[in-house]
């Protein structure tokens, strides 16, 4: 309603400031900051072990941050437990899908809408999700663990969408999937974005991530290595070097 007046900072739905986190005694993130703007697709790329997954886990709360702040829609949610963040509209589609493998597709989706807020719109949401992934409607009674990799990723995304998220965070969308499947999934993400969903995407496939995103961050060694508009980044020879050692 007051579109014109919002400045860039308050436009961020999710903002991470000076995030520090790690496992045991090992620090992985060293004061990392990034923003995901409303209605935009923000990408995070970076080599293996750079700290991408750790960032997302610290944001979602499955890993407790050591320092820094996580702001969701203007509220400090750094110490909010993971399940309560989900209820506030932060949905993480974790690396490797992490489905409830022994449960049916329908049950997975139902659990996606576990929070009381999402449960109210369950039927409506389910219809939307099945419209988005017709394949899942066909397979609704099948055990999630018996689906193909691409179908599993669909369930994972759909489960995230069922929570009626403000922001959908996806970790390694293309992991282990054939290019054609990745292409379909990314096309779906694009439709979601056009419908106004805020998306934060972590992706190894630099070309696809950059092609789709509105803004991108490159992480290295637990810090932001560089950031910018995708066009600026693709033109950057540093990224090619970091990935292929050419």
């Amino acid at each position, binding site marked *: 309603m007051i579109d014109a007046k919002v400045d860039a900072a308050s436009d961020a739905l999710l903002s991470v400031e000076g995030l520090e986190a790690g496992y045991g*005694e090992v620090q992985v993130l060293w004061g990392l900051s990034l923003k995901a703007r409303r209605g935009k697709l923000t990408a995070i790329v970076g080599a293996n*072990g750079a700290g991408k997954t750790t960032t997302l886990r610290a944001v979602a709360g499955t890993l407790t941050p050591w320092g820094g702040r996580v702001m969701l829609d203007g509220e400090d949610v750094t110490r909010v437990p993971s399940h309560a963040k989900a209820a506030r509209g932060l949905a993480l589609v974790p690396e490797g899908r992490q489905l409830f493998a022994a449960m049916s597709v329908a049950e997975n989706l139902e659990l996606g809408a576990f929070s009381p807020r999402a449960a109210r719109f369950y039927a409506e949401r389910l219809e939307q999700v099945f419209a988005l992934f017709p394949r899942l409607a066909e397979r609704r009674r099948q055990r999630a663990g018996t689906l193909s990799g691409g179908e599993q990723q669909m369930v994972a995304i759909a489960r995230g969408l069922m929570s009626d998220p403000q922001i959908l965070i996806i970790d*390694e969308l293309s992991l282990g999937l054939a*290019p054609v499947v990745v292409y379909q999934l990314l096309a779906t993400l694009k439709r979601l974005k*056009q419908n106004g969903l805020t998306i934060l995407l972590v992706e*190894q496939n630099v*070309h696809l991530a950059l092609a789709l995103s509105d803004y991108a961050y490159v992480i290295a060694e637990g810090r932001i290595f560089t950031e910018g508009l995708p066009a600026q980044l693709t033109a950057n020879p540093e990224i090619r070097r970091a990935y292929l050692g050419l």
Partner: protein
Amino acid sequence: MTALLELDRVTRRFGGLLAVNNLSFAMREGEILGLIGPNGAGKSTLFNLINGVFAPNAGRIVFAGVDITGERPFMVARHGIARTHQIVQPLTNMTVLDNCTVGACFGRENLPLHRATEAARAAAALVGLDDRLHLAALHLTIAGKKRLELARALAAQPKLLLLDEVLAGLNPTEIEHMIAVIRRIRDSGVTILIIEHLMQAIMSLSDRIVVLNYGEKLAEGAPAEVARDPQVIEAYLGDPKLAAELEGNDGNGGHGSAAHD
């Protein structure tokens, strides 16, 4: 054939997933062979097949002329194959020296305890852990634990060393140091099979590269050749054509700034 390690049509399934599919390659004695491929391509599974954590569903693995297919890990270790783990597996409450001594005691030489301790000290010194011999492994930093993995493997005095992402998680100085150590190990006559995601490092270290994708061999050759291979570029960076196509699909702006050739 003077191959030290030979894989002959090795296949391993997990449920419906073909983790390693009909894979064959051979390693010469004294070379460094780099193994690269996207996440989930089957690299770590391959290590687990070679050192006996998993048995292959089909195919043969021959080491120094002996068929070691399906042997248990401790038997494989005795033949002279040692490895490091991507996720470090220190014997947490034991000291650095004891960790290395285990490697020396039960490795290829099957040394008695007192001689094993000497070998362990030497291995720890080689990777630069000789100042922390009596520290419990759990108190090491991640870089220290990675070095410990390597020291423990070296203490076994292996003929073949499997290195699984020893550089991941290290800072540039540590990486430089580790690369120097790996070179020194090779110069001492050890054959090395290395998985690594840091491309610059693996391209400069390896004599040859094998590229895996979906459990199959995508390419094999000298680093420079492999890096030029369009299939390899696609597997790593994704298909530029698909990306372009996707971008073309974009009807109504929203991310016009993403334009690129």
